[in-house]
């Protein structure tokens, strides 16, 4: 029951939040309350791990709490709560604020459900529910043509992915007569392989595998900044986790799936970094960097699938957490600057790197958080991004396989390249002469700075003490590779 409470609490809260917003203008308080309440069943589940309380069965349907579900829930709920608090001030003046909070809370609920799905039907159901809630959030600024364009692209491309997934599910059902996410016997059947390919592309659209990523830069750049953080930190990761769940189904079928993950890793890392290098818009830059970070995770996971070892997956799941913190902090800090910038310009033009000039003088904390976040994304110690990348690279190198070692070197070189686009952000913020928008801005409220400070603290804490989350990532890897 605890599990059911955890999943349904945000989902049931969503309409109530909408009503509270429409009737009493209290959507944000309600949303925060609902998300804080969701931490109670989460805490119970974490402590009661392994008990019967951690699963729910109704007829043929089973929802099961395991390490991977814990990881996804922790990321979604953690970042979601932070984003909700952060949005208090930023979204206050927006028309449709209550829809924002309702959809955000529902989005979190669907991702928790996705993490617990144990059969293909549920997996697809929660995956679609997640997509539907996020479409509306991406196109939240419905008066803006660019925002609508981003929403339409996201909707259509995701829909194409969903069709492929559905086709894949049909093939699996036709071949095995079952929708269970239990490993299939290791024999290569034509239909199952075809299904695997369809899953790869279908979920790959959401997980932003290159070249399926084309919806992502627009969506990340046009969504409200809190949603950009959620998209980059959790939603694309939910796509990845869905893909991993179905791949365990087929894992017995030789090394092909591992090599495919590695192939996409190379594409994501290289293209993500090269495209980010050319960006002058801050949010698009961060969006492309998400591609690269997805690539680092694919590297560790590919090695794990190839060798059947946990180590690579542990590194990747650590990086999933670390990326959520880093990219969350980056998008939220940029969002704070963007709000100030838009208040100044009175329009919706994108924030350029040069617009950040001198931001550190008026907003030292936000500038420090953004610096910490992007330097962490660039993999510099003592920040968490360094530790998680290291864990991925160590596990991959340990394979002693020439191709994988070449890929590790490619990843490391790209990590260096990424500094070439992260550091200008930092340098610009620490100029002495502030840009006009920042010269006369008023101070930010604590509801906005507190989430930023908390994320930065977590980035530093895990950078110094990566052992804190090793239990969580071990269990998550254990869920895939028992």
């Amino acid at each position, binding site marked *: 029951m605890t599990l059911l409470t955890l999943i349904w609490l945000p989902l049931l809260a969503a309409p109530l939040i909408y009503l509270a917003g429409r009737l009493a203008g209290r959507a944000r308080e309600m949303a925060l309350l609902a998300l804080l309440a969701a931490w109670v069943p989460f805490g119970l589940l974490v402590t009661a791990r392994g008990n019967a309380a951690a699963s729910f069965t109704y007829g043929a349907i089973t929802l099961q709490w395991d390490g991977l579900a814990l990881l996804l829930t922790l990321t979604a709920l953690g970042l979601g709560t932070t984003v909700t608090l952060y949005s208090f001030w930023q979204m206050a003046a927006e028309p449709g604020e209550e829809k924002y909070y309702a959809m955000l809370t529902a989005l979190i609920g669907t991702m928790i459900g996705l993490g617990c799905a144990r059969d293909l039907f549920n997996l697809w159901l929660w995956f679609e529910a997640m997509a539907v809630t996020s479409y509306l959030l991406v196109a939240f600024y419905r008066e803006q043509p660019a925002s609508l364009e981003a929403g339409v692209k996201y909707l259509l491309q995701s829909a*194409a992915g969903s069709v492929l997934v559905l086709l894949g599910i049909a093939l699996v059902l036709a071949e095995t007569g079952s929708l269970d996410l239990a490993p299939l016997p290791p024999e290569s059947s034509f239909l199952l392989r075809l299904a695997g*390919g369809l899953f790869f592309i279908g979920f790959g659209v959401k997980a932003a*595998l290159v070249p399926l990523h*084309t919806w992502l830069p627009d969506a990340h750049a046009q969504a409200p900044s809190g949603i950009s953080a959620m998209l980059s930190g959790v939603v694309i990761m939910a796509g990845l986790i869905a893909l991993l769940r179905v791949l365990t189904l087929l894992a017995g079928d030789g090394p*092909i799936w591992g090599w495919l993950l590695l192939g996409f890793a190379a594409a994501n890392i290289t293209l993500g970094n090269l495209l980010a290098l050319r960006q002058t818009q801050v949010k698009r830059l961060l969006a492309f960097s998400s591609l690269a970070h997805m690539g680092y995770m694919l590297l560790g996971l590919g090695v794990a699938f190839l060798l059947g070892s946990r180590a690579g997956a542990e590194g990747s799941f650590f990086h999933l957490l670390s990326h959520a913190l880093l990219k969350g902090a980056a998008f939220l800090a940029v969002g704070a600057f963007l709000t100030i910038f838009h208040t100044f310009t009175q329009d919706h033009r994108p924030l350029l790197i040069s617009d950040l000039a001198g931001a550190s003088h008026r907003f030292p904390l936000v500038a420090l958080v953004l610096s910490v976040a992007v330097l962490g994304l660039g993999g510099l*110690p003592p920040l968490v991004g360094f530790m998680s990348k290291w864990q991925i690279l160590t596990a991959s190198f340990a394979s002693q396989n020439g191709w994988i070692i070449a890929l590790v070197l490619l990843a*490391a070189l790209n990590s260096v390249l990424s500094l070439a686009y992260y550091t200008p952000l930092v340098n610009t913020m620490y100029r002495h002469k502030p840009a006009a928008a920042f010269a006369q801005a008023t101070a930010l409220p604590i509801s906005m700075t507190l989430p930023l400070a908390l994320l930065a603290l977590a980035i530093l804490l895990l950078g110094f003490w990566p052992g804190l989350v090793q239990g969580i990532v071990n269990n998550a890897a254990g869920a895939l590779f028992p």
Partner: protein
Amino acid sequence: MPFWLIILTIVLPWSGAIIVWSVGDHRPQIQHRLALLFSGLAGLCALLLIPLTSDAAAIRLPFGAAAFGDLTFIPDSLGVLLAVIATVIGSLTVLFSNGYMQGEKSLGRYYALVLLFIGSMVGLVLSGSLFFLFLFWEMTALCSYALIAFHSDNPQAVRGGMTALLITQLGGVGLLAGVLAIYAWLGSFDIPTFLAEGGSLPGPVLAAVGFTFLLAAATKSAQFPFHTWLPGAMEAPTPVSALIHAATMVNAGVYLLVRFYPALAGIPGWTTAVILIGLITALMGSLMALTTYDLKRTLAYSTISQLGVMVVAVGVGGIFASQFHLASHALFKALLFLGAGAVIHQVGTRDMRQMGGLWRTMPLVANCFVIGAAALAGVPLLNGFWSKELILETALHNGYPWVYLTLVLTAGLTAAYAVRMVWWVFVGWRTEQFQLLDPGFQVAQFKGIGEALDPVTDSPAPATVHSGSPHPSPQFPFHAPLVILALGTLLSWLIAGEMGHWLAQTLPFHNLHVLPTLELVAEITLNEATLLALMVTAAGMVIWWWRGRILWVWYWFRPLRQAARHDFGFTWLNDRIVTDVKGFAAAWQLTQTGQLNWNMAGIVMALLVILLIIFNW
């Protein structure tokens, strides 16, 4: 006891960084004092470690996962020596900053980064784990970048910072690959384990480790062909140049080579590669130092050259000689940089042609600077003389006469640029008059060109590099570090024998060849090798005085001077690589049309490709 001292030496500067930053820039005096306090305490803790050295780990703590190994610190003499240099010279530069950085904005950021650097540098040299060695290595790169780009309004500074970061990070990839290879084949990050069992690695793997470590060392210590970042790093505030880009961080590459020498020396071709890289760098650096007019760049090229000499020392097997020279160099180069800082602070420019005659206005700085320059040139009885001669002698003794001869040539060039630098800054004449004394300017006039042309490029002299307006010279604390460093330069060689003995005690894998100070002195002074080197050094110094009479030489070497002036083309190469990478990225950008039709086509094509791969596997 060593446990807590090591913890304190690292954690004190780090906590100082946080505290100084939180004090806020509206209370600069408190920031100055706190920074001094924390760096001074760290220096004290490092000094207390000297009698407590040991080759066993003083700290070994689990760090959460196998991928990170244990957090291990070993207070052996090699590490403690460099930790002492980092913290003591660190506190001296902080003391100097108390005067130099008066009235600067963002002091909190400045001191926080300096203190963060000091702690990281200590961690780097004391680490007993390859993983933490890499971690601290990267942290020093981060601090170095942030301090070079400290004046973020100056595009040169930002560019210098990014160049430094990217090049040292490229070397970081080398270190990463080496460390990961050791871990993949040996299953441990423990440094003593690698030193003991490195020979059991498969030959190609060990060779890969050796050469990736060499790549890392070459980038960090600004060796050929990766030296280009160090001159650009001179945009950092001068105390930072003294600390990071002369006395400590740039030594990390030499440290890496020395630390792993016992395991890597046996790799075929490795020592030859080390010697060649060091020699080319030493020679190139001294030529470039001879052709620049920027005081700080002269010192930067000089650092490049001297680091090359240390790398050569490692290559020819002179481990003790390299560390002796490293310590000497740290003292006299920090002295030279701080002296240069005092000069630049006073006159408000870095162009040596706009200085001159400063001996009269700032005699104390001039005297200290001359001591440093004399040590750099290898004038007898100063620390630089003994350590350099020891390297020369080791090269000859270990059977590398060609290395010896090239180093002697470098020594001559070094003496020439040291004299040139002192002459222009402290003796010569200011701007207009002294054009007559510079052969280059005479050349320009012989050719009948009216305006003052750059003697090497025949282009107008570059616009003055201003480092702010002239300041009144602050008094005491400001000059105390100069005096202390000058005394060190004069006297530190007296304990060379003891230092060697102390080093040999806790380095079980290195087999150091050390002598008591007296025997060392006798061995060096009674050697013909020293005599030749001294003669060439003297010739180098004299050449500067006769430069008017040997104009024809100036003409002869015109192409060489041109090349040296242009950094032998390496800056061009760097720019070229940057342009090409950007062009490559721009080409890929064309594939991102942003049109839904093409996006969908991408999905369909990816599906087809995947299916092709799957069914042809």
